[in-house]
């Protein structure tokens, strides 16, 4: 299965390079999703199908939310329709679709092969094992991660709220 691994690794690197070099945020986000897909395939090959699913649900899902935000912010009536038209041009969706198409083919190949062992690692890690690890020896780690998320949440709230305050106070000055 090394071939599958290398192919998805190359796609991952290519997609990430495209993320960094795209000028249009939406195009970059499309490539970012492809990059997450390729990482998910790598996880699958390594024998961690649960983590692969999480990678798609959480990361790609988060990007979808970002997408919605971008569309929301660009929502300026006729201008947004023009924006949609630009997005529907093959130039903007062809690259990501080709890359994710290859990844789908890989997954189909792996599925078809599942009669033998589709993975290159000695054992497949099932969701149950992950749950047991998280509630067993790593329980403190889960708690620490919750504190980390709390720090990020409150920090984002504090720094993000300043722009709201600034703009509202400026508006107040004008009036």
């Amino acid at each position: 299965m090394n071939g599958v691994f290398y192919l998805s690794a190359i796609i991952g690197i290519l997609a990430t390079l495209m993320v960094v070099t795209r000028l249009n945020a939406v195009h970059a986000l499309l490539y970012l999703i492809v990059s997450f897909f390729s990482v998910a395939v790598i996880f699958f090959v390594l024998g961690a199908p649960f983590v692969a699913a999480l990678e798609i649900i959480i990361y790609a899902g988060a990007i979808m939310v970002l997408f919605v935000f971008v569309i929301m912010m660009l929502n300026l009536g006729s201008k947004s329709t023009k924006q949609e038209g630009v997005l529907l041009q093959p130039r903007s969706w062809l690259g990501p679709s080709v890359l994710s198409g290859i990844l789908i083919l890989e997954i189909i190949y792996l599925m078809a092969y599942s009669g033998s062992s589709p993975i290159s690692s000695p054992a497949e890690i099932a969701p149950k094992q992950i749950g047991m690890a998280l509630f067993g020896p790593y329980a403190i780690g889960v708690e620490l991660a919750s504190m980390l998320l709390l720090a990020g949440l409150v920090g984002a709230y504090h720094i993000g709220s300043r722009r709201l305050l600034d703009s509202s106070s400026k508006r107040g000055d004008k009036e």
Partner: protein
Amino acid sequence: MNGQELLPLLPLLIVSVFVVLNLIVISLYRNHQTTALLTGLGLVLALISTLFIDKSTPQYVMPLIIVDRYSIFFVGLILLAALMVTLLSYRYLELQKESRKEEYYVFLLLTTLGSSVVVSSNHFVSFFLGLEILSVSLYALIAYKAEDSLGLEAGIKYLILAATSDAFLLFGIALIYADTGQLEFARIAPMFDSGHIGFLLPGLGLLIVGLGFKLSLVPFHMWTPDVYQGAPAPITAFLASASKGAVFALMLRYFTKIGIHTNNSLLTVFAVIAVASMFGGNLLALLQNYVKRILAYSSIAHFGYLLTAFLASGNLAFSAVTYYLAAYFVTILGAFGAITALSGSKAEPDLIDSYRGMFWKQPLLGGVFSATLLSLAGIPLTAGFVGKFYVMAAGINSHLWILVVSLVASSVIGLFYYLRIISVMFSKDLGNSEATGSDMTGMAAAGFALVLLTIALVWLGIYPSSLIALIQKIVPNPA
């Protein structure tokens, strides 16, 4: 897992509880004084709880955390530093225009929690999570002031560079894991003794890059002056003391275990970094005109000195590093504390000229600041002198001549810029230094902290044996 097992974690648990408590109180009743008092109470309770932990044997909480004398000592040190920062911050925040002052304390408690986790971690997972809690709350603290674009810039710089260094750290951890199949420090250490190298050395190299960033050692030091300058002064104090100290304490414990003294390549890498940090920090500090930038470069140099003792072997090295760290905590908290206390509602005194004649206008604060600068320079009768002496003794004992010679030479260079600040403060020519704050709101708390720090500074300088005796007890089974 039961309650008994969690008992050694009491200080960390108390800090976490007060984080949540603070958040609840803030959402119900937004009051600066209440939050500050609650934070102080939490830190004091956590400090008291460290006394009640059974220290006779090292205790492991799951595989993630180790609680022994060594980690408890550093947790106590970090909690003390956080307490001092809380005392210093109250007046500083009162004078700010910032409308939301209360979240500051939540972040402060979270950074305290993060650094405490780092010093007591026994596993890459807890180490990395602790480090992330530490840095994420530091981003928010550095960029805390809304109207301050310099702080915002510093926050973004720290965010991007810390994320990059985390990538190095993670890749290093992945390589080490790929080779050993272990994430527990205690189990990785023996792999080195067997002479097996594989991915271990490249992994360790990447790890050193990540740690070097956190400690702002020379090739990875670029962020330090900007962040030190942009961050609020009390936060700079915490950044310089607790956050760096925690990482160094962890490094000391485990790099000693993996036999850094016998591995030539590691020894060379650290020696080069140490010499570069000592000279780089001290020489670049000469060119600065801003006091906080000078202190930033001086901190780079100080961690170079620390590496000298770190590379020395044996018991002496351990106690030298620990003593130096404790002395440095006291000194740098005092120095940035004085800057905090001198700052008014408009700005912090930053340009070296705004300190002109400080000693004659604010004799007490000027005196405290001079004392801390003298300690940083390593003048006798201060904690810094004993620390430097100890570090040199450790270096000489292990025949690290190049490092010791660079330490002496670079200290002499360092003397110049410390004395330059002091001479400006003592100059009779008062000039135009209206930036110095004479606002006395909440000065009592800050003054109390500064008095405590100054007493500790002189006490450690005159009578170091009390601390040394304590440190000798905490050294984990000598290497």
